[in-house]
């Protein structure tokens, strides 16, 4: 009797989330798989929707914009994930120190993260302007030797500029997770190290880092997935330009589906991209887990 009531409670607690996931995650995903084999349009025309087999996937192989976007996605992940995580760890160590005003700084570093990405992007577009703050600053620290750069319209600068801004915006989130991880590490380990006369650097390598292993795994995996979803910044700041220098797969999917109304092809890219990100995450898990056991 008791068991049964428990089961009812469990199911009733589980059901709302399950239904929401089913309706908004599972169903669209299954639909995307089906649509990826059709020529479905956003506004269906007189040409009836039909199955086109693997045509969409074959098209993807020859689609230079898809590959340009994918390349950028990987570059972004390879640059941003390590840099952002290292930077977040440094910040976490700083604000974890027993100094005055740490609460103030914690709030300060977290502020960009809670600000909407679109707002942040618009503000940074102004900062990166040829007459903007960044150029002025570089000009004044170089005593006028810096020549103003139109960061977002320059093919070699645009993507690094967006990466820099993304790291700045997102770092607060990882900092917070690291901070929680740091506070889990028992204080007596440090006290023991002090007694042994260990230097701060040795304490960091032998106590802090091993203590953060699970946290680091979590941060790396979640940051990677977030980094692959790169969209808002490039949409607002460059629309993928100049010459696809900041184009991403998400932007290509969006343009294909909602600007050019080609749902079938966009679905195919969604599925392919999902599989790629899944493969990367699984590989990452595999590597990080192995280290943990070793």
């Amino acid at each position, binding site marked *: 009797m008791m068991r049964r009531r428990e089961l009812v409670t469990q199911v009733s607690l589980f059901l709302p989330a399950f239904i929401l996931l089913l309706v908004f995650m599972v169903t669209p995903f299954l639909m995307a798989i089906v649509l990826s084999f059709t020529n479905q349009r*956003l506004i*269906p025309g007189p040409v009836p929707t039909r199955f086109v087999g693997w045509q969409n996937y074959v098209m993807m192989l020859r689609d230079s914009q898809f590959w340009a976007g994918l390349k950028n996605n990987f570059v972004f992940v390879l640059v941003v994930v390590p840099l952002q995580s290292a930077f977040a760890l440094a910040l976490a160590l700083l604000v974890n120190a027993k100094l005055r005003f740490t609460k103030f700084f914690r709030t300060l570093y977290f502020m960009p993260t809670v600000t909407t990405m679109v707002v942040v992007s618009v503000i940074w577009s102004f900062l990166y302007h040829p*007459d903007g703050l960044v150029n002025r600053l570089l000009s004044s620290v170089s005593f006028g030797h810096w020549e103003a750069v139109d960061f977002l319209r320059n093919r070699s600068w645009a993507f690094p500029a967006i990466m820099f801004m993304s790291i700045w915006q997102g770092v607060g989130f990882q900092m917070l997770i690291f901070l929680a991880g740091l506070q889990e590490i028992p204080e007596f380990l440090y006290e023991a190290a002090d007694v042994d006369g260990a230097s701060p650097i040795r304490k960091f390598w032998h106590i802090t880092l091993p203590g953060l292993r699970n946290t680091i795994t979590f941060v790396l995996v979640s940051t990677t997935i977030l980094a692959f979803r790169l969209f808002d910044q490039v949409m607002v700041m460059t*629309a993928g330009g*100049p*010459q696809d220098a900041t184009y991403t797969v998400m932007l290509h999917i969006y343009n294909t589906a909602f600007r*050019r*109304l080609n749902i079938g092809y966009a679905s195919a890219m969604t599925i392919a991209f999902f599989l790629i990100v899944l493969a990367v995450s699984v590989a990452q898990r595999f590597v990080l887990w192995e280290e943990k056991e070793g």
Partner: protein
Amino acid sequence: MRSLRIVVVACLLVMTLAVPALAKTELVLWYHSGKPEERAVLEYQVKTFNAMQDQVVIKAVEIPEGGYNEQVQAAALAGGLPDILDLDGPFIANYAWSGYLRPLDKYITPQLKKDLLPSIIAQGEYKGKIYALGTFDSGLAMWANKRYLKDVGARIPVSVDDAWTFTEFMEILRKLKAHPKVKYPLDFKINYGRGEWFSYGFLPIFQGFGADMIDRKTMLSAEGVLNGPEALAAAAWFQSLFAQGYADPNPPGDTEFIDGRAALSWVGHWVWQPYKQALGEDLILIPMPKFFRQATGMGSWAWAITSNCKYPDAAWQFLEFILRPEEIVRMTDANGAVPSRVSAARLSKAYQPGGPLNIFVQQLQKIAIPRPVTPAYPALTSYFAEAIDNIISGADVRKELDQAVKRINEEIKYMGLK
């Protein structure tokens, strides 16, 4: 006894509710919420129309402009389109192709057709039938700061036929660039960003050079049209304006012209109010220059009756009402757009012959070219705008245009239009 009373009351209630429903045709209308002034006029027109006759009741539903198209697309998919709706010009063909709109030809009298601006008909026409009519159209030309033009001794054109020639235009730009107060002579509103503005605003340059987005005869290929010698020349000229400092590839804001840093502003009618307030008597409207030919943009929101509508005759009554010259002027006085009928333009202070904005009416009558009316337009504009954006940033002109042509042609093939 008691239950009988309830039945009687219920019957009476049903009858009172049913009687007006039987007598009047109720039609649902969707419109995009544009400027507040525009909204207020439409609300007033709906109210007036509902009060002046007792057969048709219009129920207007306002939908935010940002998600308007998505909303309409979703409704079309779900079969839930309203009876009447307004659509942005370039989308009309796509909806007509999909069979969601009713042709309006049988309602349009010869007098009305003659009075409408040719641009309005061109925008609403797909495969020989008219599917949408607007109460206003848009105008694209150059706003100029009279003081600067006087300083450099530029001739001020008085009509579309009197427009600057290409050499004259370049000469004036060169002189304006040398003017000490002018930073960039020509403001292209690049700050609007990669999007429909790039097609609306800069396709006329390509057309002026004799190129286009697509072969207008077949509407099936862009080969040789968007990457032919004329297109290359247009793109190279456009690019050189940015490279040589005649136009700012990255304007810091929307106020270059208002602040006096630009002498000419290549943009539409919609900036009239702010420009007028900033420059007063110094603001003048300059018609599009004569490149190898003269061309300008056109197209705006237009009204259509959906195939969902059971009472198209009743729906037309409403469209006929808002297309009356005095109602058109009521709208264009509020939103500043170009009246869609010649007789309405005559009633408007700004647009009547001799009025400050009459150039727009002349342009729409003589040199306006609709953006390509084809279901593939969403792909065309997307790739064209992308190429333009890259060209502004200094990309290789030939490579960009070749790439746009290739992608446009592939899309047309994929859509099964060929």
